[in-house]
């Protein structure tokens, strides 16, 4: 009975979401678009960080490449948006392949640092390219169609979630999980770790790039600082982790929850949003490092002891 209700609720949400622009006030569409885009990023991170266990601290590099690919195509070459965004996606995949190969050989936090360095280096490179408008950035053509951007973002997050769902049920996904749990054992068992890791990285990069392209066109502006923003990185990670990395719906839940609270704070008490964000990170990492998904599952049996358990496991 409970499962039936859950499924009903889920289906209702899925049907309602595309209709939001016609029911909701315009500000909600704005908020919705932003949230959906970052939910896409969280899901994309989920693929490489949650399932494969390679916690990338630099997914914003793909987001930025996607945005710049779209912007350069539209501004410098007068190409339509569809072409531009696919170009951005293709660039990101290429980048993920070429730079992924050496970087994916690193383990643990070295991988995280390397991806972080990549993002910073990329920002530096782009700020010196004339075609990208150097440090000033590019202004994209104006398109007043908030509904379009909302639906595009919705489509992206749906795509990302479907891909993650497919991963969770496929051999590819099992291979990724095996890599996460014990990479050497997985290799011994015959999993082509290099191939699988690279594919995961490219997939995550592709999705992030699409989100970047949509965002750039929507905001009509891109520059190196905002495109390769490290705070964005951490936001997508914390949303994925808060919701539950390695689950299908976790990142979505995390993104929606955290984005809502952040948005309320940003409009009411502007600067408090960043304080809230910082505190959420600290509290979440200490008390619920495995996210809401894990919390929901184990709370029934453990109750409030769940938080104490986490502390006990990880404290010195």
């Amino acid at each position: 009975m409970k499962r039936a209700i859950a499924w009903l609720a889920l289906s209702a949400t899925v049907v309602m979401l595309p209709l939001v622009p016609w029911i909701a006030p315009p500000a909600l569409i704005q908020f919705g678009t932003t949230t959906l885009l970052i939910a896409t990023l969280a899901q994309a991170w989920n693929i490489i960080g949650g399932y494969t266990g390679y916690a990338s601290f630099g997914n914003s590099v793909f987001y930025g490449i996607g945005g710049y690919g779209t912007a350069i195509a539209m501004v410098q070459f007068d190409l339509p948006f569809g072409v531009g965004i696919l170009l951005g996606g293709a660039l990101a995949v290429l980048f993920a392949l070429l730079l992924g190969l050496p970087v994916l050989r690193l383990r643990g936090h070295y991988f995280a640092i390397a991806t972080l360095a990549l993002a910073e280096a990329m920002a530096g490179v782009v700020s010196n390219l004339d075609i990208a408008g150097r440090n000033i950035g590019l202004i994209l053509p104006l398109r007043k169609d908030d509904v379009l951007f909302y639906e595009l973002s919705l489509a992206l997050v749906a795509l990302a979630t479907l891909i993650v769902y497919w991963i969770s049920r496929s051999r590819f996904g099992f291979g990724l999980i095996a890599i996460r749990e014990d990479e050497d054992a997985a290799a011994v068992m015959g999993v082509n770790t290099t191939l699988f890791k690279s594919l995961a990285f490219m997939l995550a990069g592709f999705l992030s790039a699409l989100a970047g392209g949509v965002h750039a066109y929507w905001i009509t502006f891109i520059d190196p600082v905002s495109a390769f923003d490290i705070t964005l990185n951490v936001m997508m990670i914390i949303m994925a982790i808060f919701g539950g990395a390695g689950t299908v719906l976790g990142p979505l839940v995390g993104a929606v929850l955290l984005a809502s609270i952040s948005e309320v704070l940003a409009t009411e008490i502007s600067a408090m949003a960043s304080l809230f964000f910082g505190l959420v990170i600290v509290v979440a990492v200490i008390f619920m490092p495995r996210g809401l998904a894990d919390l929901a599952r184990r709370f029934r049996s453990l109750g409030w002891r769940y938080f104490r358990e986490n502390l006990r496991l990880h404290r010195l």
Partner: protein
Amino acid sequence: MSLFLQIIANGILLGGLYALMALGLALVWGVLNIVNLAHGAFIMLGAYVAFYLFTLLHLDPFAALPLCMASLFVFGYCLQRYVLNLIVRAPMFNTLLITFGFDVVLTYLAQITFSADFRVVNPSYAGANFTLFGVTLPLVRVLAFAMALALTLAVWLILARTPVGRAVRACAQNLLAARLYGVDPRTVYGLTFGLGAALAGAAGDLYAVVSQINPYIGDPLTAKSFAISIIGGLENPLGVVVGGLFLGILESLTSLYVGSTYTDVVSFGVLVLVLIARPQGLLGKTT
């Protein structure tokens, strides 16, 4: 030719400043395996302590060094003992996230407390310089360089020769064994992190004299300190000096021959290369 020498000298002195900044981060990372993304925020706090001591009590920045270091030490110790210790045995990635959280909170609190106005510490000798072999050397930077060397040596001595240092290294190598020998890891970790924070405080003190302070100077400094720690290698405290010098000279030369907008590309590009090709850094041993 003398321009080239000047550029190299600039690079060396810049390197000294960089080494001083990175020392705290490298210590905590190398010994405790904690990557402190709030390191720059600690430097920023140290700078503000120096600023207020200078402005309110007219205390010379070099005289204020022990105070800066002590206050940051206490702060770092408490942070480790009561907050960070809670996640030490969790996956490493969690420390990255939580220290990032600290960074955000500290920056926000600094903005509220100190306002976004930029401050400077301007003692009478701030612009003093002397010339050697046709090269102009700013006095404060030379002192910072000397300070970096002195502190690195001090850290090395503490770790290698004192009982506390031995306890720290024991915890880093084998926590269980250290416990069996009666070492209380919570205090030891607290002391180490506190020391790292104190070193950041010292860097902040000098940074205030060389540049200007505002709540947002932390992040670029953390990024630089990262690069230096990895490039130099985390196993050897002297690695930070080598890394700092390497990066300082490289940036100076880039500015001369390529263009000063490329310094970030170069720093992070080298970092990525080092991570890929020689992750143990310049001074690290190949295991």
